[in-house]
């Protein structure tokens, strides 16, 4: 009922663990696959080891979550030894990569590809060193990064993870598609801040962080809706998905698969199973046999 095809990858259900949540080790990814996720995305890796920001790096509240972890990661070279291969887990694995310079995206992507993940996701939230703006904010930069990664990854499909912090996400998605992207992951977090009035300081050590959780969902649904009208490649709709109804909403906006990240905070690591059960229940009640029947239906 929930089987999903994402760029020829067969998923037992459309839920995908989003990058940045728990995906530091291969064993965790395997556990999350076993307990319900259709696919798992690893935490982003770049060309070097990074320790990230000081704590607090996360702020979890009722309907809103913020994080500023600062892209910590062991680096791709260390990961090659740690993971050895990524095609022998309980579910398809999506390797998330980034670099500072364009060439580094290519270098890291090539190494990631050697681990044989089912897909490679490109985190483009890092600012370009020379342009002084993030890769996600510019059609030309997105095109360059996409092409460089595609040139280094062979037949492994590549998804570009877009940010909502732009004037027009449609043109960015279009640029990625034209440059050869096989999918779009939408969206990354929206920037935000929380201040503790007793400490009289921003709570996150980095001061500014990324907003996720239920508060992000309407923004994510709007982005997925707009991107679906612009590109033909599949979308991994991510942002605030916590319940089965949220996942169905994403699919009706046009998502092929649905990212679940912060939802783990709200409902535990078995959220994937919970979301799937809720989707199936709704589908049965509404006599929907498969997700193709409702994908993008909100556009009609």
């Amino acid at each position, binding site marked *: 009922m929930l089987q999903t095809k994402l760029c020829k990858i067969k998923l037992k259900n459309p839920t995908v663990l989003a990058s940045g949540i728990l995906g530091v*080790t291969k064993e965790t990814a395997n556990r999350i696959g076993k307990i319900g996720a259709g696919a798992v995305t690893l935490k982003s890796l770049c060309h070097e080891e990074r320790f990230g920001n000081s704590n607090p790096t996360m702020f979890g509240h009722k309907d809103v979550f913020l994080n500023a972890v600062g892209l910590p990661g062991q680096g791709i070279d260390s990961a090659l030894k*740690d993971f050895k291969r990524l095609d022998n887990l309980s579910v398809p694995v999506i390797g998330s990569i980034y670099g500072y310079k364009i060439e580094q995206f290519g270098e890291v992507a090539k190494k990631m590809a050697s681990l044989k993940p089912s897909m490679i996701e490109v985190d483009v939230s890092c600012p370009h060193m020379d342009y002084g703006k993030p890769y996600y904010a510019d059609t030309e930069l997105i095109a360059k990064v996409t092409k460089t990664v595609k040139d280094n990854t062979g037949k492994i499909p590549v998804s570009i993870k877009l940010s909502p912090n732009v004037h027009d996400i449609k043109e960015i998605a279009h640029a990625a598609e034209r440059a050869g992207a096989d999918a779009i992951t939408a969206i990354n977090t929206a920037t935000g801040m929380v201040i503790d009035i007793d400490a009289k300081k921003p709570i996150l050590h980095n001061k500014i962080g990324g907003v996720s959780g239920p508060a992000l969902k309407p923004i994510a649904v709007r982005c997925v809706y707009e991107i679906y009208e612009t590109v033909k490649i599949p979308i991994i709709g991510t942002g605030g998905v916590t319940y089965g109804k949220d996942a169905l909403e994403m699919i009706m906006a046009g998502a092929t698969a649905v990212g679940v990240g912060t939802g783990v905070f709200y409902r535990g*690591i078995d959220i994937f199973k919970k979301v799937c059960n809720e989707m199936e229940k709704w589908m049965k009640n509404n006599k929907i046999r498969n997700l193709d029947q409702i994908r993008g239906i909100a556009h009609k």
Partner: protein
Amino acid sequence: MQQTELCKTEIPRIMEVSKVVDEGKNQKSFFFKGNIMSKPGQFIMVWIPGLDEKPMAVSYHNKNEFAFTSQAIGKFTNALENIKKGNKLGIRGPYGSSFPLKNNACVVAGGVGLSSVSTLIDALHNPLIIYGARTKDHLIYLKRFKNKNLKITTDDGSFGRKGYNTAILDEVLSKNKKIKVVYTCGPEIMMKKVLDICNKHKVECQASVERFMACGFGICGKCMVNDRIVCIDGPIFNSKQLSKMSEFGNFARLKSGRKVTIQEYHGNHT
């Protein structure tokens, strides 16, 4: 005094330090008013605004107040050294699993690890405590536990018996067949020895495992030991769980996620 129950919070609650107690060499306990309602073995996240936030075991706990105990070894714990009564810290939690309470218990602690089992000792009925530290100056809570059944070792012999607490545990379990459970907290290499000794004598072991943490609520993925998430699956693990964790006593992950030997991990106080 009116008792204040503090409900669990995921957001730091800014609280005034009500008392600071010197416990031993570079070791201090920081007290706060209110009932944090934690169970033995649980931890809180302590925020020094503007600096950093770290997990700390609840080391004193009653209806009116609670505390954590810190040993100055890195940037964060050195900054705590300068925290005085009246200063404010952010506290969230309590988090994690707790020790199941059982009779006929032995507690094996090393160094400041005693602070993670101190509220357990308060809750247990007359446990045997085997406590080791490097030197006499590193021993904590001697007054607090003076009426307890306490065996002490120091590495240099400056107090109690010279040598390791694990040697005493082996002797005790060989002679005393009444002991049904061994609770432990301390350096992980010591706890691995405790687990091995317990397995040899077929006695249940419950250990408090420490790893680098960012969130405390099971999503950052930094505190993994194999596929176990220390902050929500633990920090308390039993013999069966520990025996399945090949990384326990051998490997840990740095803040970056890179896997290193437990010795390198303990030398890295970021």
